[in-house]
Structures are given as C-alpha cells and as structure tokens.
C-alpha cells in the first residue's frame, strides 16, 4: 500500500525549519509532539496538495482522527486518493 509519510515529513520540515526529518516518524503526533495549531494544518494541507500528485482535499470532510499522527494522515490521503480515482 502506498505510504505518504515521507511527503508529510518533508512538508512538516518546510513549515517548521527547526525540525529534521530524522526526528519524525509515523507515530509522531501533530498536536502533542509538534505543537500544530489550525494555522499549521492549513499550511500542511496546502503544501501536500502541491507535492502529492493528484491529491486535493476538495469537498472531503476531515475528522480529528485523520490528522492525529503522521501515519493517520497518510492513511487518510490513501483513502482520499481512492475516492478521487473513483470519481474520475
């Protein structure tokens, strides 16, 4: 199964230049470990829409569990990409 953790980690490091990719992993939590707030999430999704080919949030609804950890967000993107392919 495709995993988008690497792109997510790259995006996090772009938002917060003090982070290094090596310090982040699938279980890293956005709020608890990285101090993400709503502004950081907005930036994260904007970067991911540019860097993950074909990915767009579109009319998708986000639930808090979808962006709890890097792994959870990666799983969300996988599901969203399937929806987008089906819609196309």
């Amino acid at each position, binding site marked *: 199964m495709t995993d988008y953790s690497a792109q997510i980690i790259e995006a996090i490091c772009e938002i917060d230049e003090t982070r290094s990719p090596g310090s982040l992993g699938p279980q890293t939590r956005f709020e608890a470990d990285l101090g993400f707030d*709503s502004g950081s999430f907005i930036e994260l999704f904007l970067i991911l829409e540019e860097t993950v080919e074909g990915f767009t949030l579109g009319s998708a609804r986000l639930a808090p569990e979808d962006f709890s950890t890097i792994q959870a967000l990666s799983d969300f993107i996988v599901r969203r990409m399937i929806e987008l392919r089906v819609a196309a």
Partner: protein
Amino acid sequence: MTCAVTAHLSLRAVFDRFAGHTGLAYWHEDGQLSYRDLHNAASRLAARLAGNGSGPVLIHGHKDRRFLIAYWACLLSGRTIVPVELDQRSERIRQIARVSGATLALFAAPGSLPGRVGDLPAWPVEIEAPAPGWVHVDGIASDAAPVLPEIRDTAAAYVLFSSGTTGQPKGIAISYGNLADFADWAGTLLAGMDPTGCISGNVRYCFDVSLFEMWFAWLSLRPIVAPDHRDIFNIRKHLDRYRDHKLTTWVSTPALALHWLKDRRFDAGTLPDLHTMLFCGEVLTKSLVETLWSRFPGLRIINTYGPTECTVAVTSIEIRPEHLADSRPLPIGPPRTGTRLRRASAASGLDELIIEGKSVGLGYLGDPERQASAFPAAATYRTGDWGDCDGMGNWFFAGRKDREIKLNGYRIDLNILEAALRGIDGVKDAVVDLHPNGKQLRAFLLGPTGRDALLAIGRRLGRDMAPHMVPKLWYGADGFEMNANSKLDRGRFVERMEGGTPAVYVERETSGTVAAE
C-alpha cells in the same frame, strides 16, 4: 412609569419580512434554509417557548441551520438566548446553565437528541412542520398561532459567556434595547456595501462578532454561507463555497483572515465579488491591510472596536491608504450614533476609554463587585482599554490597563492564568505570555521540571479553564534570578527557559483530558 417595548417590535419587524420570502437565508453543508422556512420554523418554536415558561434557554449547537431557528424562536418569545457550542465540556455547560438560570435547552444540531443538556431538559429544533393536528409533549399544538409576550427593552436578549476568574464562566447580558440599537447601526453600515451576493458565516454563534454576519444577512435578506469549524483546515473547500455563492461581505477577526491568507488562492481571482471585509475582536494591523489590498485591489476594509459588554462593537471606520501612511496605528473610528466615547485620566498619563449610551449592556450575571466597578453609572462602561482621540473625532486603541490579551478573538487575562497556576501544588511562581509569533500562549513555571510534571499541571489547569485559556507551550525550571525588588525577574526567567529545554506541548481537548506526552 411605563417601560419601553419598542425594541422587540423593531426586531419582529425584521423577522416579519422573512414571511413568504423564498430566497436563501442560510447555507451549510448539512442543509440550507430559505427565509420562508426560517420564518415558519422559528414561529412554531416561538409559540411553544412562549407557552412553556420564561427562563433563559441554552442553544446547544454549532453551525447547523437549526441554530438560527432556535435563535429567532427565543428572540420572539422573550426567552434569553444562551449559546453553547457543541465542543464545550459538560461540566462547563452545567456551570453556564447554573449561572444563567436557564430552564431549558434547545438541541440545534443533527443527530439524536441528548437526554439532557447541562442537567436541563432538551428539546430538538424541528425544521419541517409536524403533521397537521400534531400535539407536542408539552401540550402545544404544532399549528397553534404564536401568542408572543410583550417584552421590555431592558429584558435580556442574550447572555454570552467568557472565561472568568478561577475558571467560573462569566455571563455578560445584552438587552433587547441594546440589540435593536445594534441592528439599527448594522443597517447603516450595510448602506455602503454591495447589496447582492452572500455574507460570510465565519464566526461561531457563542462569539458576538457573529452578530454582524447575522444582522447584515437578515436586514438585507441575503444568505449566510457558513463553513463548519470541523473543516477549518480545508480552506479551499470553503473558498469554493464562497465563490459559488458570490461572497461580497466578509466578517471575521484579523487572525482568521491571516489563516486564510496562507492560501494563495484567497484572492480576487477566486472571490471576484468580495467587496467589503469587516474586522472586529482584535487589533487590525497595517501589514494585514497591505496584504489584503495586494490580494483584493479596491477592497473596502472596515475596522471596528468594542467590548462584548457594549454589544459587539461601538466604533467603525473605513481604512484608507492615508491611514497606512500615518505614523500612528490604524484608527478604530468614531462611535456609532447613540454611543459616546470619553477618556478618564489615569495616573499613568494614559486615558481609559469610557463608553456611554445605548450600546452599553446590562452587565455581569451574579458578580455585583465586578458590575459596580465596570459599570459605575447607568449606561456607562469602563473598558479597561487605553485610548486616544484625534482632532477629527477618530479614536485609537492604545492597549490594555491590565494584562488582558486577545488570542483568536478570545479575551485572556494573563494575571488570572498566572494566579491559577500559582494555586497548583508544586508551582512556586508562574509567568504566562504570548509567544512572539502571536499565536500561542506559553507558561513558564518555577518549581516543576520534566515532561510528566508539566503535563500534570497542564491537565490540572484544563479542568478549571476553558480550552482556549490553557497554554500550548510549557517550560519548567527550578532556579531563578531576582530583580532589584527581590522578585522573580520575569524577563530573565523567560529568556533562560526559552533557550533551554524544548517546550512541552499540551493539546487542547474538549472531552475532559487536556494533556499529551
């Protein structure tokens, strides 16, 4: 002596225009509402409310269309509105119910009706008319003609709650007279705006800046298009909705606009109809205005100022290029008709802003000491803000007397937070400030060190305080420098910890626990 009852009648006149109007009143992802539907559903619910007591009513909801039905039903029937968001902790809802004296809750959200809300009996808010002849459990027939009471101008139309000392919610009451005066003012502001398209629905209904959005829409029979805060990160979806409904009028805090500006598509290319942005609730900066004008050439930007205690806002001014060139901060404008601003001299050489007139609300529930100090005379409110006025009648906001700050539109008194932290076992002293990025609160503690100890304290504070009051970043140290007065040198204390151990983050949750590792 007779009591004036004209405010309720003037608000009802606004409502009466909804009857039979098939235009869109409200758009939300879960469903929309025409003005006719809003009129009919609110009238039915008002009839039930008028026949079931007179106590305040909690409206428990978020952005669903049911919220507006409940809002108007309460306003028509003279039942004071007490809005409570869905993400409030149940203990806080119980406190709000107790302080407000509410006797009923209206559940204004989709899904199954909770048995009770904050220990109160809860009614669902119905959108569709029940079958003819249907009789509700309270004995009121669904097709009963509403018999609405006569309501005095001095009766409370709504009560909003903010965080008070020791975490007890503080209720601020606004009368029918205040609300009708606000609606009159909103009508004059509308005169300069594009009369077509939709109004933003950015602001939660427990935050009074939402009154601009509601009354702009209702007075001009235009729709509110309301993004849901569940989706707050999905700006592109909301941008598409606003574009589809031809957004012409935007209302928010400056902080929200800053968030949206992170998306390069937030510009005149995506929103070609956007004509006016009105800001309230925080200080508007020149840099934000410059960025907005670069994205939306020709945009009208209106700055407003005012406390919740005085019905949302009391001054307004359209920002012009010459204001950016001026060495002073952006003006907040002259007061609205019926309201006066004056300065009260203080020992510091700065002057406190005093608000007088029709916008001054009823005041605090159950807090006579604070009431006497903040409302020293009839229709007079001491703002606690420093202010100045130029020769043209324009006012300027010059900061707070106390250590109250604004974060995402919420008022937070840092002294209260520090006092609460000092009351927790193991905390010898505490400094709370706003991160230089202006987005997060930081707590610096003397005594506890280490992740676990700091998290335990964050969790403890989260039990007493509303989520927005709990600092995000936590630092601890067990040694400190003293200043010349043998007190904690707050500046050096903060500086030393900033450069040391990385901060511990404490999540904001609303379900009870507030901590993370």
